[in-house]
């Protein structure tokens, strides 16, 4: 099926997509008293803990370290749950894959959308924290949607491949745990890029999450413009990844109902 027809078909199934997103957002906190408020409470508690721990217990060389951490960790957590939820989105829906027809791309798309919505809520807390800390906001923060878009595109490309591969070989989902952990330490989250030895820097920067996280740090923490060149390269890589991901997904999804 051509790409245009696929887009049309997904549009036709948009109600299913929205319902899946709604179910994910509602279902996540179903039965809890605070419900969706937990989306805000979780990052809030995280911020409180970091502020206390890094103010009084550990001293780091980075100014406003808890804010630095927060600005970097929030996007990472969102990325982490996109990859985690995305990898298993097809294999966990065996019952509907076996019984109902719908464009299978709806499943990874719903993971991306619901996680992006959650992430945007946690960003509200981030921005409030930045204001309270006295760092303040600059107009550069208006570039936030652009960087979110790049991050989401990157994650979507990966999820297309990972979700399809996981239907065939379940090792993928378990392999992702250590990979995500290594990836986290290979990205400037707990430390800043100045601490990376010069000779490793060129290899270090091959990680697309480096330019994305530096983008967030630039606009929210340093209040400067981000490095548009590296963000542009990352965006191009992300789009290429989506194209390859879609080709892989499209090929593998034909046997989902048999393999899952």
């Amino acid at each position, binding site marked *: 099926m051509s790409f245009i027809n696929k887009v049309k078909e997904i549009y036709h199934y948009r109600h299913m997509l929205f319902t899946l997103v709604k179910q994910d957002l509602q279902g996540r906190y179903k039965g809890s008293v605070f419900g969706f408020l937990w989306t805000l409470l979780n990052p809030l508690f995280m911020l409180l803990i970091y502020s206390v721990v890094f103010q009084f217990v550990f001293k780091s060389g980075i100014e406003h370290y808890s804010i630095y951490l927060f600005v970097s960790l929030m996007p990472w957590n969102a990325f982490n749950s996109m990859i985690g939820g995305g990898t298993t989105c097809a294999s966990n829906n065996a019952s509907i894959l076996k019984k109902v027809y719908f464009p299978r791309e709806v499943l990874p798309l719903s993971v991306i959308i619901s996680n992006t919505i959650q992430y945007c809520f946690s960003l509200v807390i981030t921005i409030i924290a930045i204001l309270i800390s006295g760092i303040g906001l600059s107009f550069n923060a208006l570039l936030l949607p652009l960087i979110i878009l790049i991050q989401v595109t990157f994650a979507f490309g990966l999820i297309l491949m990972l979700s399809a591969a996981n239907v065939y*070989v*379940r090792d993928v989902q378990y392999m992702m745990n250590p990979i995500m952990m290594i990836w986290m330490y290979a990205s400037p989250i707990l430390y800043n890029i100045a601490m990376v030895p010069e000779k490793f820097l060129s290899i270090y920067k091959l990680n697309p999450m480096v330019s994305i996280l530096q983008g967030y740090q630039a606009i929210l923490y340093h209040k400067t413009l981000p490095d548009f060149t590296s963000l542009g390269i990352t965006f191009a890589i992300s789009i290429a990844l989506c194209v390859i991901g879609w080709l892989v997904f499209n090929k593998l999804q034909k046997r989902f109902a048999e393999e899952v």
Partner: protein
Amino acid sequence: MAKKNNNEKDIAISVQNVTKEFTVYEDKSYFLKEKLGHLGRNKKRKHVVLNDVSVDILRGQSVALIGVNGCGKSTLLKLLNKIIYPQKGTIKINGKVSSMIELGAGFNTDFTGRENIYFNASMYGLGKKDVDPIIDKIIEFSELGDFIESPVRTYSSGMYMRLAFSIAVNVQADILLIDEILAVGDAHFQKKCLDKMKELKAQGKTMVFVSHNASQIKSFCDRALWIKKGEIVMDGTTDDVLDAYTKEQG
């Protein structure tokens, strides 16, 4: 093929030279270690379920697929519904498909019956605006009454099937694929289902049935296909095909 020279737009379902084979694993492995372990050892074999099948089904026709268990009827139905894909050949479908292959698939049991109507209908491409005008009809047909506001996990299997059937017949599809499901609920509800199916047939919907119930097939279908070991061995009026089939079965 009895019918040739049909106008392209009169054809609801066109199946051309479709071959479907399943890989049968002696021991289905999900994990890489097992997959690697199985390399070299010939633990899988190919099983041809449908072999070079071609058939055209016209708009408004009701067609029964008959044959013994494992002959490929349900596989053909799943292929028509695009749940699985053929290795060879093409399948063209003109119109919206409502599948009653597995009723209630995709119900989220933590959500209420009403919420699940919206979700299930969304799998047929219907939005809230499309469902709102028909939701009362669906609820009334299901005879669930106040239970519609309870989570689906509290339903009995009969209630579950009634809700699923009510949605599937009310989504305004052009083509209905039905796999042995007219055994829904009690005698009263079964009769209601049959009446509803007749009503849909009268409206000119295309239907493909898989059933072992000869009397149901006779009362519904104007055409029957006898599938034997993955091939269509007979295609004709329901009475003729059923007679030949029962004769062979003894």
